[in-house]
């Protein structure tokens, strides 16, 4: 299993993570990357950025699948021929709902477990964890759960929670400490441009990551 969690940010901020992501690909001169946005309706510009981002790293086979819009069975099956599948940022609840509705959730999980490289930015990274609770706080910076989705179970590819766009501030820390008290797994909080790489049993941190566990905070990669 190869996973890359992005805390957020643009191509420039994520240059290190991107190159580490591409280095996970073995024996493929012309890799295929599929981008799955959290929401298809506003993803045209986002996809352009993704294309620019990966093109600048020499990738020219870049696909997109909008899971909240109609697509063929052919495309549904074909994206698993990709070397990397990139889950985009956006509203985590909306993304989770449509991953489940489209039947892609299990397929993506199985593909990742078989060795497919799955990466996600912000909402896309949260999706790879056991549950998406971290999208619901802090109050001042949370995703709206417009449709009141109750089942927040997600891919469960790792045994930690992920908190993107983290800022080292009292307000964030209070919310994360509180959450970690009632949570059995650690929460890794990543600012933009910072991330986590999971390769098999190995977990590597790229940049300064905050870990919240049992109400306490400590930094990894100080």
């Amino acid at each position, binding site marked *: 299993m190869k996973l890359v969690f992005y805390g957020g940010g643009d191509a420039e901020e994520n240059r290190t993570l991107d190159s580490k992501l591409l280095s996970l690909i073995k024996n493929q001169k*012309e890799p295929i990357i599929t981008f799955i946005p959290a929401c298809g*309706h506003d993803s045209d510009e986002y996809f352009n950025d993704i294309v620019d981002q990966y093109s600048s790293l020499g990738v020219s086979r870049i696909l997109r699948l909008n899971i909240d*819009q109609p697509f063929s069975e052919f495309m549904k099956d074909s994206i698993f021929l990709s070397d990397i599948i990139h889950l985009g940022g956006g509203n985590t609840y909306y993304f989770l709902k449509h991953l489940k509705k489209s039947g892609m959730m299990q397929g993506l999980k199985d593909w990742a477990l078989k060795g497919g490289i799955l990466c996600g930015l912000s909402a896309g990274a949260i999706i790879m964890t056991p549950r998406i609770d971290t999208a619901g706080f802090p109050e001042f910076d949370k995703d709206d759960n417009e449709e009141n989705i109750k089942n927040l179970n997600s891919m469960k590819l790792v045994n930690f929670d992920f908190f993107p766009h983290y800022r080292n501030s009292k307000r964030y820390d209070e919310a994360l400490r509180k959450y970690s008290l009632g949570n059995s797994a650690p929460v890794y909080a990543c600012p933009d441009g910072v991330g986590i790489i999971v390769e098999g049993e190995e977990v590597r941190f790229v940049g300064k990551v905050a870990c919240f566990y049992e109400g306490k905070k400590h930094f990894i990669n100080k």
Partner: protein
Amino acid sequence: MALAKKVKQQDVYKRFDQLDGSHPFKKVLPEGFVDYPARIRKGGKVSYFNFTLAKEMGLIPADHDGKITPELEAKILQTFSIQIINEFDQEQERKFPEADMKSGTYMATRYLQLQHDNKQGKTSGDGRSVWNGQVKYRSKVWDISSGGTGATKLSPATSKFGRYFETGDPTISYGCGYAEVDEGFATAILSRVFNQNNYSTERSLAIIEFKNNISINIRAHRNLIRPSHMFLYLKQDDHQSLKSIVDYYIERQRESEVWKDCPQNYRKYDFFLNQIKDTFAKLSARFEDDYIFCWLDWDGDNILMDGGIIDYGSVRQFGLCHYEYRYDDVERFSTNLYEQKTKAKYIVQTFAQVVNYIRTKEKGSITDFANHEVLNSFEDVYENQKDLNLLHRLGLSERKVKQVQKRDPKLVENLRKSFSYFEKMKTKKGEVKISDGKTWDAIFNMRDLLRELPQAFMLSDSNLVAEQFVEIMTSSLASKEDLEINSYKKQKIEEFQKLYKDIIKKTAKIFQETEKKTLLDISRRSQVINKPNRITGDATTFIINEILKKRKELSNEKINNLLNALEATQNLNPDHKVKFPQKYPEGILNKFMEIIEEHREGI
């Protein structure tokens, strides 16, 4: 202080005051309209106001926020909430309070309409609308008219029954002089979508709503003259009036710098004819390829002189190439998608007759112009545009489209033939009756194919097997029987894929880039151009029902925000950066998107 604020607010909206019924057309063609006094119609409220358009027209300042303030609403109502004092009112010697009377008079223009028994346009024209006037702002001129302002003597009802009708007479529907809220929203929604996607169209400026779903729907365009405004004088052998209105149109085009190169002397009529030919040839090609049904006919009604879409009552955007659809207008069926070209060509033929009549003062028969050189040119422009359209639909940029078409027209022609084979394929079920007409369903969703095929070719250099190819483009309207793959179909599938790849190779070669780069570029553009959830006519109807159902809980501001967001989801231009007001479709917009998806392959 309060007075100063009030004065300032009045000053901000002073451009509305230009809209007092005056219009240069009145001087150009005194016989071309019926002039009506009007009074303020009370009890209305502004349901919708197009802030973007109002800013373009200079009616409100560029930094105006998107809120209908009490001052703005008062100004809109004062300007547009009017009802004409028609012939019925005058016969009944009805009196209205002086304070309610508008100072200006408002014209209902005369034009040809095929639904009138008089085929010379002596009875027809604006049957329930009048022109509010003209606004000039930053070298642009805008005509504004309002539908639902009262029954005029040019309505089909007066023509049919030979008497005048009271505005709102419940015994007649079409002809009572009222417009309806749902019509207003249909125009608002579709005109915003079409305008965004570079179609010339009337644009909805505002909807004023009254009780019982009645409304006044206000529209604007750079020039609201239709071919039918000219054709009636041709039919009536009225050389002077015909020349006056053609000259008027040409001058306006010249003044607005749309026709900067138009000659001053008699050659201006050749220029005029040539422009009309180009407009209508390109338009009919685009209507076909974008599956837009706009009931074109010999009368030159339902379309503006610049090819702009007007009167959205029968305008539809199909999801697939449902070229057999015909609208049932009770007494007749409409033209279908492909017959629009024949009608557009006939309109150009009529203009050839118009120009000849103006120049020679002798009116030839329309059949004398059946072989006019302008019609050959029409065919050339049409065919060329069809090629360009297909390359655009594939996802090539404008620059690439031009070069590929120029350098290998035969390849493009072959691809078009191959594409058309699948696009026109219909269900074996045959013709069916539907609520507003009849149709014979297409079975393949070519937009899905064009969106997914470049991605498939990025995954593998090999061609898709026939079953995969068909699966990508299969629509919900196809039956198992429709999808049978015989050896001929297999051959056509192979042929199409080969031609498609040849286009990629050709483009890459011309632009000296790798085929992978060309394919990636095509893929990302094609995903915008051929996005799956494109609004159709059916979807528009259901969306409007949803708006009307939730009308009470929707403020003006919320409706505006919703229509802004809806418009943003319908951008098909990959070069246009769209600002999404919502990060994801929530609430009513989510419902709209569900409706669009459900009806995306319909009529």
